């Protein structure tokens, strides 16, 4: 009889693959679990440098009281952090009063700090007094360009309708951002683009943009010699920095709350700008910036450790492996049975294949965001590992289901009939004949899912799941190519390693027949 190479499959194939995957997953879970042993204070921060510095300062203050603090730097945007605070994923994070009034409680028209306190109290959240500086929005131009055109105030922009504006995406959307600004100043400009804040500075410098949004404590304002235009109609609200923390932190660790409350009124605008400049322009690690600040201003012996590059890579590797292995393993457990059912029932099979196919087409970011409220509603963690793993799991289904289905349907009819004619039970036929014959195809599906997952898991960093995406995001924020490569190179290597591992695995599961 004719046999293709594809069909030489060991009957232990499936089991081997499953055991190996299980082993990897267990290892990853163990590595991961080691990170959270005691009951430390968990701090989050936003994805820009100032927030990371404030997170480090809070961590250092809390550690000076003897409590362990974990700072999950660059955890996410406002919505993700506030959600995480509510769901106990973190205990505290730095926020701005303007963001609280105009974004978190948009439309509630909160005026004073007391109003904010009252609104937060309903969510079991408290707020420290302002740290001192007001990091509000401003519009900025290069000094050369503004003096050339004689522009000093935002009102002056009205006479120059052809100017090119470039704003951060958040500024374009928020209710005190561009739409409101345009209205209150009656600005005529139509050439308005959305782009990453860090990139806008370079676009302004190169002359590709005329006007951008600034944060008033940005270190780059001095560095690039920018002119922050006067907000002559007092459009922008005040953005005083505060820490938001869970009310239950007061009972759990009152010392921690006392420690961060001491930071009120200790950081004025020039100080914050200087701290930002040290971290961003001088590339001093945020932990050192925080240590030095506390040492000099509050005379506190702060010892936030800077994670070594090796430690960072190792941590990111563990996080990444955890995301990829758990999601792939879960997908194997679910997708193979779906593939089997799809191959046995033709109508149902087509429906199942269509469903997993549709899931695959949901854009990855949309899926992550869509998952958040669903997970919160069913009481699961809406940020971090859980949504990332679920998203990766969803994307892994299609290749495994499709390849399982194709592998089973592709078994030559004479073999299928020989199994039937023997009078084996359907289960015996499935496990002893069909699955081994389809093993090569199934394994190829698992391989595709795993390799794609390695790349896709880098997006997990957007929702605080860690992994190799984290240094990539930080690298973009700091314009630090080394950091970007610190995430990108291991991610690429892991993808190649995964591919190679499966190729080797395939050789054991699908052994080439020895020569006669």
């Amino acid at each position, binding site marked *: *009889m004719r046999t293709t190479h594809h069909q030489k*499959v060991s009957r232990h194939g499936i089991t081997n693959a499953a055991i190996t995957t299980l082993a990897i997953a267990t290892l990853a879970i163990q590595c991961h679990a080691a990170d959270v042993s005691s009951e430390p204070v968990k701090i989050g921060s936003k994805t820009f440098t100032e927030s990371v510095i404030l997170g480090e300062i809070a961590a250092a203050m809390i550690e000076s009281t003897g409590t362990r603090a974990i700072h999950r730097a660059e955890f996410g945007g406002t919505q993700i952090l506030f959600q995480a605070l509510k769901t106990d994923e973190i205990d505290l994070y730095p926020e701005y009063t303007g963001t609280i009034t105009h974004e978190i409680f948009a439309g509630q028209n909160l005026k004073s700090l007391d109003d904010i306190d009252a609104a937060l109290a309903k969510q079991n959240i408290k707020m420290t007094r302002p740290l001192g500086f007001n990091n509000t929005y401003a519009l900025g131009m290069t000094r050369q360009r503004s003096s050339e055109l004689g522009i000093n105030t935002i009102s002056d922009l009205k006479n120059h309708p052809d100017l090119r504006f470039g704003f951060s995406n958040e500024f374009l959307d928020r209710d005190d951002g561009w739409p409101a600004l345009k209205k209150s100043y009656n600005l005529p400009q139509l050439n308005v683009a959305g782009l990453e804040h860090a990139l806008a500075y370079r676009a302004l410098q190169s002359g590709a943009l005329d006007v951008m949004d600034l944060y008033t404590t940005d270190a780059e304002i001095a560095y690039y010699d920018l002119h922050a235009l006067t907000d002559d109609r007092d459009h922008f609200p005040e953005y005083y920095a505060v820490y938001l923390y869970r009310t239950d932190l007061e009972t759990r660790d009152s010392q921690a709350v006392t420690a961060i409350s001491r930071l009120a009124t200790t950081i004025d605008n020039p100080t914050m700008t200087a701290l930002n400049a040290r971290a961003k322009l001088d590339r001093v690690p945020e932990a050192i910036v925080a240590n030095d600040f506390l040492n000099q201003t509050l005379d506190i012996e702060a010892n936030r450790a800077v994670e070594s590059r090796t430690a960072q890579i190792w941590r990111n590797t563990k996080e990444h492996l955890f995301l990829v292995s758990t999601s792939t393993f879960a997908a194997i457990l679910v997708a193979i049975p779906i593939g089997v059912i799809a191959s046995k029932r033709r109508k149902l099979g087509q429906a199942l294949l269509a469903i997993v196919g549709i899931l695959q087409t949901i854009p990855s970011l949309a899926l992550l965001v869509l998952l958040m409220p669903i997970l919160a509603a069913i009481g699961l963690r809406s940020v971090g590992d859980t949504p990332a793993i679920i998203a990766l799991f969803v994307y892994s289904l299609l290749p495994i289901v499709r390849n399982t289905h194709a592998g089973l349907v592709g078994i030559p009819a004479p*073999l299928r009939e*020989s199994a039937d004619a023997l009078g084996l039970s359907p289960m015996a036929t499935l496990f002893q004949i069909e699955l081994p014959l389809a093993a090569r195809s199934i394994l190829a599906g698992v391989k595709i899912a795993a390799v794609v997952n390695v790349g896709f898991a880098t997006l997990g960093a957007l929702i605080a799941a860690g992994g190799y995406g984290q240094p990539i995001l930080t690298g973009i924020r700091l314009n630090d190519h080394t950091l970007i490569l610190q995430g990108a190179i291991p991610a690429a290597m892991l993808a190649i390693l995964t591919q190679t591992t499966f190729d080797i695995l395939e050789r054991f599961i699908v052994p080439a027949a020895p020569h006669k």
Partner: protein
Amino acid sequence: MTNRNTLIQLKAVSKTYGNLCALKSTTLDIPTGKTTVLIGQSGCGKSTLLRLIIRLITPTTGSITFEGNPLTEQNITTIRHRIGYVIQDGGLFPHLTARDNVTILARHLKHTKSDINRRLDELRELTPLPAHCLDRHPTQLSGGQRQRVALMRALFLDPDLLLLDEPLGALDPIIRSELQTDLRDIFLRLSKTVCMVTHDLSEAAYFADKIVLLQDGKIVQQGIFNDLLDRPADPFVTRFVNAQRGAISPSGATL
């Protein structure tokens, strides 16, 4: 009519696929302990008939009985354990060794290891197959060896009926004639009920106690081989016989 001499009986059995009629209403007895050969051109319905008997396909009309009991979805697994089935390319599972292919059903039915090994030795001597072949995968065996392994698998539970669908069709002439001799010896020694499909008249003549000629999904003539030569029921029978005889006429020895 059912009696002790008939193992399988088909009564007015037909099989259609949509508009395509693979087998017209057919009535046929497979006598116990005899070799029945179904012969005819490609697409005449002979394989369909065999596949109906082991219920790989179900009849559109009519009924099939095994020892007088109608085949049903419920009893077919038990009945299949009493039928050995060999197809043209052996139908061996490529991921299993010859040994595992041969013993798969016995292992599934939880026969003891010693019983299995004893039966394996018996069959290896009967077919015969060199011992070292047992640990090879089907791809590492010759075509003839594969068919011997397939026969061992079919005979493993000592079935009451052997169904062979062109078992020698894919073999080259020398191997084929070797295996023909061995097969006939085996059938005679075991006095099994055999139903075999072939398109080769000389092979049919060599094996058949009863020969059944089919054309376009219906039986044209059945009886002993000489009936086809001496008392053709239809001009097609003569045409079929002459065409095959012509192909081997230089020696003419087998006819």
